[in-house]
């Protein structure tokens, strides 16, 4: 029972008024996660520094030596802003899968939280807000690293953080939705192998789509990471206003659309 919580299903529709989290209580959920992170952050953040460093080393300075320019910019400058976006994605994906799963099914923390005035929508909102906060911290660490390497060429890059927040919320909702719907922990390997890793490789982070057939563009358009990479690369190299707005709107819309699913599924699972 503890190891396999089982598939609870989506659960009945919930009126919109009951979907609205209470900010103070969602904040309490956020604060618990932040408090625990604050005890562990030194160990947790170090790989985040190393990760983009290794990618830059292997791809930017290694492979990049053989690639002159992409769309007129050096290869390492081409991939650097995308690494900010992918760091946020990886962080969101881990936080809302394994970490949430562990809190929910192993520590059984939510049984206690839900017997206080906190309701399911507050838990989901608080957890998502935390996951997005953590992912933003990770993204900003990478931003700092690539800036130190001199790979950011536009002052517009200062606007990157709020868009990393928007993107991280979107990644987090997707991971959280998956967590509330899966019957057992083994299924995360599918989530990563068929979802996160392909998105990492094929979202235009490592190569541009301009020379590729149209259907590649269509597929990419459905990937959240593609939209965040478009934003961070745009801001790091000098943005087109409508492109940034359009991509951010796409990420925000998907987040809002999906939010109801984990709330319904988690209520079904924990308040049966």
């Amino acid at each position: 029972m503890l190891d396999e919580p089982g598939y609870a299903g989506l659960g009945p529709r919930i009126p919109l008024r009951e979907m609205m989290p209470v900010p103070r209580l969602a904040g309490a959920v956020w604060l618990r996660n932040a408090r625990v992170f604050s005890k562990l952050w030194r160990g947790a953040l170090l790989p985040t520094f190393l990760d983009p460093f290794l990618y830059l080393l292997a791809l930017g300075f290694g492979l990049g030596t053989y690639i002159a320019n992409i769309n007129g910019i050096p290869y390492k400058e081409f991939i650097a802003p995308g690494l900010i976006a992918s760091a946020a994605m990886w962080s969101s994906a881990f936080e809302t899968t394994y970490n949430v799963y562990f809190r929910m099914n192993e520590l059984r923390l939510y049984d206690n939280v839900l017997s206080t005035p906190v309701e399911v929508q507050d838990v989901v909102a608080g957890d998502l807000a935390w996951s997005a906060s953590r992912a933003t911290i990770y993204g900003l660490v990478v931003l700092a690293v690539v800036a130190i390497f001199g790979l950011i060429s536009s002052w517009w890059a200062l606007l990157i953080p709020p868009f990393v927040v928007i993107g991280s919320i979107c990644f987090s909702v997707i991971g959280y939705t998956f967590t509330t719907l899966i019957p057992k922990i083994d299924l995360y390997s599918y989530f990563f192998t068929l979802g996160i890793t392909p998105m990492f490789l094929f979202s235009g982070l490592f190569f541009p789509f301009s020379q590729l057939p149209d259907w590649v563009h269509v597929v990419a358009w459905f990937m959240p990471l593609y939209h965040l990479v478009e934003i961070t690369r745009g801001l790091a190299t000098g943005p087109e206003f409508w492109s940034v707005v359009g991509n951010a709107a796409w990420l925000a819309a998907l987040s809002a659309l999906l939010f109801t699913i984990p709330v319904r599924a988690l209520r079904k699972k924990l308040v049966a």
Partner: protein
Amino acid sequence: MAVRDRAHDQQRPGAGGGELTDSPAVSASGLTKSYGERVAVAGIDFAVEPGICFGFLGPNGAGKTTTMKMIYGLATIDGGDLDVLGMDASRERREIKSRLGVVPQETNLDGDLTVRENLLQQARYFGIDAAKATERATELLDFSLLSDRGNERIHALSGGMKRRLLISRALMGDPELVVLDEPTTGLDPQARLAVWNALDRLRRRGVTLIITTHYMEEAERLCDRLVIMDEGRIVAEGRPSDLVRSHVGREVLELKLDADCDAERLVGSLDGRIQGHDLSERTLMLYADNAEAVLEGLDHDVFPTESALVRRATLEDVFLRLTGRSLRE
């Protein structure tokens, strides 16, 4: 509910609980709950007066925990009415939970936080401001005899300490009603006594307690009133001492029968002198107000026994009479 009504009828006049001056802290009528095909709670009625300790007894799977979960909002209600602190449990969950404390059956303390942090975090879930939370945490660490353990990690605590901390955590929101699901299961006698003392202190403060247990001596010691549940129904209701007297009598004669002793004939020969009997393998329980007299009147040549024991009747006898002696899994 025929069985429940009988329990009421047998209650002696004037022996019932205090007068119902306040409206009940919790009241249920026709409350039902199923999980798929399995009926967990099959239409129960009860009322808990404010300020008392009210017990739910029953074998595993009787529906006690499900009933508790419906009270504190972690299980939906399929049918009937459930009022908690004057509010509808299926609609006003958040409001009810803000005035309620819960001690769950499973220890679900936050292992990533210290003892004190567990209490402070609980205060945040109740929207209590930081200064007030710090004050209450100190007070409640004292209450649960954990003052010198505040900065320790959860896994450094013993089972009894964890249970006391769970009780303190349930009190962070300053509840009017505390629901405790098997609060002493798995504890050693000293740890159990410490929990009982904590619950006594709470009741003296006027907090209403609802507790589930399958320890009969715990129910006799703690509960002002209780119900016995079996297979989702309430099979008896009343004060512990009244239940013992009405279902069993004052005393029990416990006979271990020889292999060639005819139990049925033995019981038949005592017609009118006993209030009832139960046979479990070769052990025969005879319930009577004066068991010594029954033993003296017994012809040991006709009914040979290995041993005979006269003892005071307890709630355990009532429990086993009403819920049977076979194993429940």
